[in-house]
Each structure stands twice: as C-alpha cells, then as structure tokens.
C-alpha cells in the first residue's frame, strides 16, 4: 500500500522532489527530536534503575587521595551509572513478587481473550449468517457497548460479587494459577471488550463467502456444523486482531483490579506495582528496576509483533 503511493508521487510531482529536499531534512530533524522525546524518559528510567539513590541525588562521597578529604560527587541523573547496581533487579523482583504478578495478569488476560472471542464469534455468527427478524437491531444494541464507560459497572457488579462472596473466595480453579475470584475481573473485562469484539468479527466474517455456508448446508451440516467446521477455521486472522485488542484492554487495567482484588496473591501487574511504589517511595534504584521489569516484556513483544499490534489497534478504531 505504501509503495504504491510512493512510486506515484515523483511522476506527477514534476521533479518537485529535488526542490523539496531541504524541507525534508527539516521534517526529519523534527521527527528525530520527537524520537528523542519519546525514548529519553525510557532511557532515563533504565539508567536510574542501575544506580543507587545517593548517586542520583549527588550524596555520594569519595576519598580524594591527595588531600585526604572526602569529596562529594555531583548528582548523576543522565549519565551511565558509575557503578552498575545490578542488585536492584533481583530485589525488585523479589519484593514486588513480579513473577506472580505477571502470571496473574497473564491468566486473567488469556481467559478474558478466550471468553471475548467465543462470545463475539458466536453472536456475530447469529447476527450475520443466520436469518431472523431483528438481527440488525440486535447488532445496534451491542454497539451501544462502545459508548458505555466501564465505570458504569464498578459499583453494581462489586456489590453483587461481594454479596455472593466471589471477591473473598479462596477457591482455586487451577491451584496456584487461576483463582475463582479472578472471574470478577475476567467477566467484566470480557463484557467490555465484547462490543469491539463483535465489530471486528463482523468485518472479518463478512469476508467469508456465503457460498461456503450453502455448500456445507447441502452436504448436511446444521447451523452448528457450519459454525464449527466452516466459519471457525476461517476466522483465525480475526483471532489475532481481536486477541491483541482485548489483551491491551485488560493487561493494563487498574480501576477494577484495584477495587475488586484485595488479596496480594491475586494482584494483577498494575495493582502490584502500584503497591510496590507505595512501599518504596525513596529507593530510586529499586523503583526503576521495578519499572523496567514491568515494561520490558510488553516492549519485547511489541518489537517482535509491532505490525500486528498496530493493526489490532487500528482494526477497531478505523471501523468504529
């Protein structure tokens, strides 16, 4: 797509290309400034994660051999660490219980994605492939969900879940991994991803030729057979788009997670690191290490899958 536009430009541009050059350099310069603005806070975060607080604050003193006096070293904010304090990492890992936080967030995300995909594929199938009165209206009804803020559900769902004891339940569905009370996050997250899930699925399912349904029907498939044997296998591209969208919705969610989960063993990543920051307000190195550990996996995955992830973001927005 991009090359098509690029190739066409010089043709109609009447050799404007060379005239534009200086302004192009200016544009590159501006963009590079933005790149620095984008990257610098992250570099700074990584750099102070490897320093001690005294080094950052300029409270570090060294012995001057000639005079025999202690001299204060200047504060080191931007530079590389004078001595690399790798210890910050295992300590942050341990005190914040990062492994567990990651596992909890991952489990909640995976099950949210599963639930969202199942519910939205099934509903989309019913609304686009099955013929019944009111299916258009039903689609509009689901699209209401795009405007309803997640905050609407916070208190009513909280009161109900608290009443039935789900929030304080100690039951473990998969011991040490999936807790029953994680359902209190999975279900609302899935519900709030549903509208976008259906929107995305409608787009993808519309691309599957209807002839396939008819052929399968003539071969003796019922509505369930068509769904499982024809539609589902062809919906795999939608799974990645929808999965990425849903993942980004729930991986970083804080409001529900912080209100609904009170047991630190069940904390998701945002809640856990929030607590961790609260405990270590003055130990800069440790906080920096915590920040880096919490950010790194997301960024690594992003570097590997950047195109897919960007597509996942756009799929919903452009159609919505």
């Amino acid at each position, binding site marked *: 797509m991009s090359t098509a536009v690029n190739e066409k430009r010089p043709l109609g541009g009447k050799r404007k290309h060379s005239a534009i050059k200086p302004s192009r350099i200016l544009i590159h310069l501006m*963009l590079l400034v*933005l790149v620095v603005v984008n990257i610098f806070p992250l570099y700074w975060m990584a750099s102070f994660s490897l320093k001690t607080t005294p080094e950052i604050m300029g409270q570090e003193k060294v012995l001057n051999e000639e005079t025999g006096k202690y001299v204060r070293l200047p504060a080191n904010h*931007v530079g590389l660490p004078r001595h690399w304090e790798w210890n910050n990492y295992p300590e942050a890992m341990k005190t914040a219980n990062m492994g567990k936080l990651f596992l909890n967030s991952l489990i909640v995300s995976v099950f949210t994605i599963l639930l969202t995909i199942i*519910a939205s594929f099934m509903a989309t199938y019913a609304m686009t492939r099955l013929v019944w009165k009111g299916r258009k209206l039903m689609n509009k009804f689901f699209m209401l969900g795009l405007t309803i*803020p997640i905050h*609407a*559900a916070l208190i009513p769902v909280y009161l109900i879940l608290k009443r039935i004891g789900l929030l304080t339940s100690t039951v473990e569905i998969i011991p040490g991994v999936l807790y029953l009370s994680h359902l209190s996050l999975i279900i609302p997250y899935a519900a709030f991803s549903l509208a976008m899930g259906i929107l995305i699925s409608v787009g993808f399912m519309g691309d599957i030729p209807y002839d396939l349904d008819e052929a399968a029907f003539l071969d003796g498939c019922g509505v369930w057979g068509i769904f499982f044997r024809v539609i589902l296998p062809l919906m795999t591209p939608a799974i990645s788009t929808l999965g990425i969208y849903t993942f980004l919705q729930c991986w970083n969610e*804080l409001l529900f997670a912080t*209100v609904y989960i009170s047991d630190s063993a069940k904390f998701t990543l945002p809640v856990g690191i929030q607590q961790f920051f609260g405990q270590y307000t003055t130990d800069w190195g440790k906080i920096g290490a915590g920040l880096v550990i919490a950010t790194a996996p997301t960024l690594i995955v992003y570097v590997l899958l950047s195109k897919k992830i960007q597509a996942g973001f756009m799929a919903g*927005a452009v159609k919505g």
Partner: protein
Amino acid sequence: MNKSWTYRLNVLLFLLPALLLFCTILIAPIFLSVRDSMYSFSNFTGSDRVFVAFGENDNYLTLFSRYLKDGSTLNTKYIGNALVTAFILAALSTFVQLPLAMGIALCLGKGIRGERAYLTIFFMPVLISTVIIGQLWFKIYDPKGILNAALSAMGVDKSIFGWIQSASGSKWPFTGQWLAKGFGYTALIASFIPVLWQYIGYHALLMYAGVKGVPADLLEAGRLDGCTEGQLNRLIIIPYIKPILRVSVIFAVTGSLKSFDLFQTMFGRDNDPAVSVPSMLLYRFTSLSNEYGLGSATAVILIVLCFVFALLINLIFRNRGDKVA
C-alpha cells in the same frame, strides 16, 4: 430457510453468551446505578439503605456543593474540581494533542524515508502501562528529579518548582493561590504532559492509516491543479479522513473523562480532593469510604457525560461532513 423452533432456539443459543455478558455487566448496572444513586448506604448488602433523593442529603446535591452546609469548610466530596480538570484535559487532548498527531501523520503518511520506524517508536508508549508511566513522570517531576536537576543546571532556582508534589493546597488553578506562588501550581499541565507523551503516537497511527488510505489519484489531481502541499492537506486529506478524526476526538474526549490510572498513580497518595478526576472520586467512594450512593451518582454523571459527548461529537462531524460532500 426453515424457521422452526429449533432454528430459533439455535439463534438464541448462539447469542446467549454475548447477551448474558452484555445485559448483566453493561445494561443492568446502568439502571442499578441510577437507582443506587438515590440512596445512601455503606453496607454492601444494602441493609442500611436510606432514600435521600430530592431531599437535602441528595447525592447529586452533595457532589455539586462546594462547601458543607454550615458554609465554613470545603466539601471533600465536591466533584466540581474533578469535572473541570477532566474537561480541561479533554480540551487539551483535542486541541493540542490531536493537531500535533495530525502533523506527524501528514509528515509520515505522504511518504518519507523510515516512516514505519518512526511510527513504531512513536506508538511504543501506548503499550506501556499507565501506572508505570505515571510513576516514571512522578519521578521526573520529583523535587529531586531530572526536571529540576536540568533547570538548576541551567541556573534556574528550582525551589519554587513543586510540579506535582503537594504544596499547601495551592495546586488547583482556580483557587487563586497559584498566582501568588508563581509556579506553585503546575499540577494540571504537568499531568497533561504524560498523557500527551503516551497517546500522541496512538492518534498519529490512526491518522497515518487514514492518510495512507487517501487514493493516490485524488492527490495527483490536486497536484495537477497546482495545489501546494498545505492546500493538499487542508482541502483533500483532512476532509477525506474525517471519519478517523471523529474516532480520534471521541477517544480523546471520553478517554479524558474516564481517566484514572495516571492520576491515581501521581496524586492518589495525597488523597487530596483538589487534584483529582471523577474516576478517583468513584474509586474513593467505593473502596475507601464505602459511600456507595455517592459513588453511584458519580458513575451516573460519568455515563451521561460519555454519552452526551459521543453524541455531540457525532453531530458536529456529521454536519461538517454534509457541507463537504
């Protein structure tokens, strides 16, 4: 096709998971919130529920009264400041962030070496948890943080720069004290910068996709007619990608109204009603003070605002679209 009852049952079965999720988690809570906002109660079973609507203890009345009834002390449940903060944030996002993102999108979208690489870098902060970004900027704004270090290196006295740290309640712009204290009040702008930093890449990506979608022959025609680059942007590209701009504006506005993570991370510890957003009040009423009636009223206000703004934005864009077409 045959419309037997088994067919209808199958339709229902396919819809069932989505319908269940949707009705129990999205639709029913709206009605429950409206109902609960008329009561005052702090027990989750609702056993101490008292009807307060339209009386002097009305939840909405409490939220919108700045002073307690005796007129002496500030009402810590006052939502006005939080709402104005959210509105300012929405305005800044729409009128500062989006034009900047548009600029980036136009620069990249019209074909420049390394456009994908730029885009990939600009989009990166979107994926980082806002909790982390809040904490990172909290450290940047710290009295001993890098911002003050840079300022003092440039010879600016840093003692007056509190940025976001609590400084004797002088943080909110309309309290009047910030003028007296010079730069004492900077929290609002300081909290907008991370929002800008995090989401500009998101909007730039959306708009970039839009710019890429403008048919090449449309641009060719414009160039042949002697359009300058500025005219191409103004007369062809921007009108063409209006549907995407609409989505961007809706995201920016409703996102600002709903914002929570960043403010909770940066200001949550102070528990200061002066620097808060509506969602933080909702959080406090639910989790800290168990005032579920007030919390429900806050939620209703948020729901209404989100709906009204989404409608308004759709209306604005529809009218303009008609004129162009």
